């Protein structure tokens, strides 16, 4: 790995011109593009809602208690990631594994509940083609679920095979967890700030 650091500069240390290392700059640019993506979908939501003569209230179709539970699960997951990162900083790898593993478990439970919700909709004949509201609901929550899956893949790798790095390069490993944590917080905040209020509560 030390050879990689020599070949690729600014993996951990900051570039003097930008003030960032590669991963930090990369994750912020990626998140900016994500904001644009979800901003475009949110704009579609406003356009369709403003155009529709009839728009169902989220509470009349969607299951608010389940979505509230999912919100709580994501909040717990984000806090667990923070504790995991803090544990690494305190050189407590065992606690890190427990906290990071818990956050992954929370992500899986979130997806399981989401699958249950989708199945209930399909069972009642509610498909994306049924109404623009449902089209937006499935698009936004489906895209968000894909982001959760992506985060789970990365976090699982970091907890499993990727954890070997901690033995020979703990600082870079901490940095990877930090970057993965920023992404995970973004995905959670996206749900808490945008998707849950707009789809379920409006």
């Amino acid at each position: 790995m030390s050879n990689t650091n020599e070949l690729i500069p600014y993996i951990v240390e900051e570039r003097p011109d930008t003030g960032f290392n590669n991963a930090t700059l990369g994750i912020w640019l990626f998140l900016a593009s994500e904001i644009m993506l979800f901003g475009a979908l949110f704009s579609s939501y406003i356009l369709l809602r403003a155009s529709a003569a009839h728009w169902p209230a989220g509470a009349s179709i969607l299951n608010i208690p389940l979505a509230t539970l999912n919100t709580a699960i994501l909040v717990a997951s984000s806090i667990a990631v923070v504790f995991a990162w803090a544990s690494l900083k305190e050189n407590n790898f065992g606690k890190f594994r427990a906290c990071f593993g818990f956050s992954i478990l929370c992500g899986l439970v979130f997806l399981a509940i989401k699958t249950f919700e989708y199945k209930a909709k399909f069972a009642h004949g509610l498909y994306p083609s049924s109404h623009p509201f449902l089209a937006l609901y499935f698009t936004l929550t489906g895209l968000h679920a894909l982001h959760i899956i992506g985060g789970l893949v990365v976090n699982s790798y970091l907890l499993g095979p990727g954890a070997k790095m901690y033995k020979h390069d703990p600082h870079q490993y901490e940095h990877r967890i930090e970057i993965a944590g920023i992404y995970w917080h973004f995905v959670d905040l996206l749900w808490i700030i945008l998707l849950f209020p707009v789809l379920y509560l409006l």
Partner: protein
Amino acid sequence: MSETTPQASQQDVQKTVGMYKRLFTILVVITAIGIILAYTKLSVGIAVSVALIIMVLKSKVVWDSFKSLVIGRKLLIIVFSLTVIFVAGLLLGPVLNHSGHIVGTVDISKDLQQDEKPLEAHHHGD
């Protein structure tokens, strides 16, 4: 996660953890208020206004928590300013078009009205 130097003190770490705890506590409280409001019978206009206020509040809380990572970093400020302009432009499109369609596109409002189905008829408890 806040970016810390390798020599970041435990105090800094605890400060960051405290910041996250505070952030998520505030978000949970605001979300709880939103959930309560969702069950009250408000008119569409008031409901949308309240929802927007809640979203702005949440965004403000998040910004207050993360601004230390952005402020002083010119590149990030440029990137996120462009992002905000892009999203604001996208949002202004439909808002400024009172006829319900974006200039240069076909008017889909009539089609949408025809496609409306009484979804509440499918109401269920999941």
